[in-house]
């Protein structure tokens, strides 16, 4: 290949921000449905929403905020040339991601154990608004959980690259973009948490 190496960090960041927009819009569709159905079934949404465990939701919020803090600190550490500290902090982010998924698993399995899952006979026999609430809950938190896994995998790969020196103090755009993605995952949860656990 005769391609000249072309490096443009501003372009890489612009591309990442555009991608984050698309992610917001993806979840926007789900939030739109939430808004419409909340207006239609305010009572059923309240009944269903109180069945969610707000302590677990709060725990997960704290965990995700901590994970984002670690990611941001990892970037600063790398920019200051402390690659080992950056790797350790990324490890912290991944640990939080794992903790988040474990709590999510407990929440989901408890709900499923009580016969609450999309299309379940229990929900079908109840009020329609409640089954809509739980369908939205499982779809939204499911797709969000998928993003947690993708973001975690992404940061794990980037952490490897920091260790091997490919991503370094002079060349940190990959980590910056990875952290941006992780903040987005966090940000979306910041909207999911009050909508499903708190306001109802």
């Amino acid at each position, binding site marked *: *290949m*005769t*391609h*000249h190496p*072309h490096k*443009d960090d*501003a*372009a*890489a960041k*612009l*591309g990442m921000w*555009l*991608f984050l*927009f*698309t*992610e*917001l*819009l*993806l*979840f*926007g*569709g*789900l939030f*739109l*449905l939430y808004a*419409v*159905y909340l207006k*239609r*079934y305010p009572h059923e949404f309240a009944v269903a929403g109180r069945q969610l465990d707000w302590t677990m939701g709060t725990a997960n919020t704290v965990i995700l905020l901590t994970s984002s803090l670690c990611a941001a600190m990892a970037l600063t550490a790398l920019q200051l040339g402390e690659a080992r500290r950056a790797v350790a902090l990324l490890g912290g982010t991944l640990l939080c991601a794992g903790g988040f998924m474990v709590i999510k698993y407990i929440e989901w399995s408890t709900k499923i154990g009580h016969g609450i*899952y*999309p*299309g379940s006979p229990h929900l*079908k026999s109840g*009020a*329609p*608004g409640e*089954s*809509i609430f739980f*369908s*939205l809950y*499982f*779809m939204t938190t499911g*797709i969000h959980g998928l993003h947690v896994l993708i973001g975690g995998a992404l940061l794990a790969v980037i952490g490897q690259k920091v260790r091997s020196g490919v991503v370094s103090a002079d060349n940190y755009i990959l980590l910056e973009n990875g952290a941006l993605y992780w903040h987005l995952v966090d940000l979306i949860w910041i909207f999911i948490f009050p909508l499903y656990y708190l306001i109802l």
Partner: protein
Amino acid sequence: MTDNTQPAVSSFWNDTGKSGIASWVFSTDHKRIGLLYFYATFGFFLVGVLLGLLLRLELMAPGRTLMGAEAYNALFTVHGVVMIFLFIIPGFQGSFGNLVMPIQIGARDVAFPRLNLLSWWLYIAGAVIILTSLFTGGGPPDTGWTFYVPFSARTGTNVSLAVFGVFIVGFSSILTGLNFVTTIHRMRAEGMTWGRLPLFVWSLYATAWVQILATPILAITLVLVMAERMLGTGLFDSGSGGDPLMYQHLFWIYSHPAVYIMILPGMGVVSDIIPVFSRKPIFGYKFIAFSSLAIAAFGSLVWGHHMFTSGMSDTAIWVFSFLTFIVAIPSAIKVFNWVSTLYKGSISLEAPMLFSLSFILLFSIGGLSGLILGAAATDIHVHDTHFVVGHFHYVIFGGAGFAFFAAMHFWLPKFFGRRYAEKPALVAWALMFTGFNILYFTMQVLGMKGMPRRYYDYLPEFASLNLVATVGSWILVAGLIVMLVNLFRGLMWGVPFEGNPWGGATLEWSTPTPPPTENFIDEPIVTHGPYDFSGIEP
């Protein structure tokens, strides 16, 4: 590819020293990716044409002619899915956007060449999944390309897989969009100010924004359809408390702006071709550029006009109808500026110009019939009739399709280094233009008379006009065949295409033909606008 098919000069065909399939399907060169897109999307166009031809054959006479109701339902669904998701949405950006845009802004490549290649692979993967859905499971989907619930949630045909394929193609579209926006922001050559961008680039820029902002909504909607089928979420099922109307809203929030993904690049092509063949700078450069953005912006707010008969409130109908009329303004601005460019120009009617001029006429007819559909009172009369079918074929085939053909005649010789014969190109254009109008104008008349769409059968009083329309489809396809044979022969074995025979002033005409992999021998410094023809002789 043997040696005598390519000119001996060094170009992106041979200057990397690599040939063979792998050097193409794993190439990050925007020109090779552009041609890959062109082969794939145009191949699907031909598949779609064949399916359309079969639909017209079935409608040639009342009653069962070729196939029954189920086969007809599957056929028009697949025709729509192939034409929309596999040809016209990825086609323009993927092929001509990739081939021409980086050169037009004086760049070596797009901002993210590897992402560009990934986009093509995702497109191919999505296409393969869609094709697989036709031959496995419950057979090809029969829902129409819109996948409307509740039918799409219940039909036994292979909707889930097809929808998943469209999801993947959508991902490819998003990545192309963000790649192009970043490229146009970051990769312009020295002196290539926003006011000197060719109008094709402006239109791609507006299109890319629509791709970025609208496609995610389609993605989540399709995921929800899959969830509806596989998990029984019931979000769109009125029996479970959901609302099918919400599906239509979410679907059209994407799919109406998607119409502008299809037509905007075509408008850009025409804006680039008309000045070249009129030997005059474009009239109203800024208005054409900003009307692209205006179309992209207002076009995102009009989706409800697809749902006038779906049970929305009267207020919603009134607002959506009003906004729909507003989109007509930037569209009309473009048409008036093209016509003003022609005024007192030194017009030469070569193939790209003829296709561009017919674009203006056919797009205008399609646009005006769109106003009939945009007004709720008249829409309810012609809703779901062949009038609608005629309308969107005028806009998408007569508009975007003819602009695609114009682009093929205008730019492909540049990249192949050989040119087609002019006379057969004119014959092809005349046949296609005639056949097109016989086919689709008749459809509009049929719709006015009340013939519904999406039925394999119809009342006997529609028989003669349907026969006329079917004959029109044969003339159209005959022209298409002439065009294909002529282009293929010309690009493979035609006389060499050198220099700047049409006298274009945009940057792609200042590079060697075909361009080298790096596009430019010296990095270009832009000192004049894209339609400043002083000193350039055809």
